[in-house]
């Protein structure tokens, strides 16, 4: 049976084609900017990672394929940095989420002076990590810092916050959570404010308590927003470099030698920009894998 084209089909198709092209024209300026600020550096980084480019040999050729990745992963301290970064990111994100959720829930009940609370909360977020690290470095200075002075005034001996192998890791985690928690609070507070009221009213009619409402309504409805906050923070934490650079330089020993700092050292102390790029791609790969896994878990539960 012959199929005849519907009358007017050609003109509709033409309209769609024209519409698509118009859309592309509108998107072109934005796409050009994205290509320049994201695409070019990314492609250049890929080229660096497979090249022989170092500060002593500033040329891409000859290309060496996977060799830089092999050199980086052969370093015993690379795997230490990978494992440490996974631990660091997990602890900071968990801390930021729990604390952020608690504060967001409290702020959700506040009616008066809400704008002032939010303004105060954004201050740490607006500060550069280097400034934050310098401030905390002075506060935590064991002999002259104000925190140990407060402990001493309370009759307790001060702590070696950044000089003890175990404590230094947790101190950097704490400083990071202090700065980054504001972002999580703001995202979760916005999410809480946008939740519909009807399910809560129905739950109240059914006699559900505050804890039940939180567990069966707030948490499930907040899950997409929470997932976004966690993923953004996970990516942020995996890239942590500034705090380590200012506070500990990766020490004491190798206690705070995170992967970003490892990549920096390869590139700028070791003059091997190619190996630094390879280490950065390893970091990117780990973040991508974790993000996909996390998304799958969230989506399955939905």
């Amino acid at each position, binding site marked *: 049976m012959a199929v005849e084209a519907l009358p007017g089909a050609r003109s509709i198709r033409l309209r769609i084609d024209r519409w698509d092209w118009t859309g592309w024209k509108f998107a072109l300026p934005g796409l050009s900017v994205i290509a320049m600020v994201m695409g070019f550096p990314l492609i250049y980084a890929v080229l660096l990672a497979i090249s022989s480019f170092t500060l002593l040999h500033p040329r891409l050729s000859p290309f060496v394929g996977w060799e830089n990745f092999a050199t980086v992963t052969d370093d015993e301290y690379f795997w230490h940095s990978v494992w440490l970064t996974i631990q660091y990111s997990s602890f900071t994100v968990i801390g930021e989420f729990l604390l952020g959720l608690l504060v967001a829930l409290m702020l959700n009940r506040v009616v008066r002076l809400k704008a002032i609370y939010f303004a105060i909360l954004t201050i740490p977020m607006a500060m550069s990590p280097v400034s934050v690290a310098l401030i905390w470095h002075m506060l935590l200075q064991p002999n002259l810092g104000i925190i140990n002075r407060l402990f001493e005034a309370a009759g307790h001996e*001060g702590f070696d916050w950044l000089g003890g192998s175990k404590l230094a890791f947790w101190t950097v985690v704490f400083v990071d959570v202090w700065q980054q928690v504001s972002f999580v609070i703001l995202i979760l507070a916005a999410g809480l404010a946008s939740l519909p009221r009807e399910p809560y009213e129905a739950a109240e009619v059914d006699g559900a308590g505050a804890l039940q409402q939180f567990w069966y309504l707030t948490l499930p409805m907040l899950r997409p927003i929470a997932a976004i906050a966690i993923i953004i923070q996970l990516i942020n934490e995996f890239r942590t470099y500034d705090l380590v650079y200012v506070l500990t330089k990766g020490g004491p020993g190798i206690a705070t030698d995170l992967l970003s700092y490892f990549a920096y050292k390869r590139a*700028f102390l070791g003059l091997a920009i190619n190996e630094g790029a390879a280490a950065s791609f390893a970091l990117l790969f780990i973040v991508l894998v974790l993000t996909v896994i996390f998304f799958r878990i969230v989506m399955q539960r939905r």
Partner: protein
Amino acid sequence: MKKQGGVSGAAMQGQRGDPNSMEFSNYLFSAGGQYLDQNRKVVLDSPQGKKALELYVDNIKNGAQQGALSATLDDTFRLMCDGKAFSMVTYWWMLPQLDNKEKCPNVAGKVALAVMPGGHGESGGWGWAIPKNESPELQEAAWKFISWVQGQKMSTERALQGHAPVRSDTFENSQVLSKYPFYKDALNVVASGKSFPIFAYTAQYEDVLGRQLSLAASGESTPDKAIKEAATGLEKLMKKSQ
């Protein structure tokens, strides 16, 4: 001293990297050790090197201030200035900062320079460089400027204004000495100083060495193992630079 006098024996900069590498170098040269011999062969893993690291670790643990493993030059300077440490290993030209009644009233008039025990310390001097890829005209102009600025006359004038001299005749100049009497000791410090290995990967070696020093000082490695690893790291980087 720390327990009885309430003052640390030494303000130590044990932060990993440049601070602890430079500080340890003083211990190494003081104990008679070296990084490289005359043929630039790595000789760090020696009885003297091990002894130096043992002394360094012992001092970090028992003689230094709390938090020495994360301390930098700024931290140690503040401690000395505050009168909370008996000694520190640092650049000789920092003495006028400490011996200043306005800035450091607790210690001004009570501090002096001394060469490291053993007769040698780390020489933290920097040098001028003329890039070989510049044109001959620019290279000549650069050399002319360096000759002028480091010449006897200009060097003396700069020293009188507080700049650190690099010429022995400036250190011994009577005008300079009358203004800065401690330059007599400073000359001994400079003249007896030995250099950290300077090569293409010096910055990376500071990190490699600093990591081993920090691991030993924090008890995560032994001085014996740490000095061996530090020597192996230096050998690898020296080989890479050839």
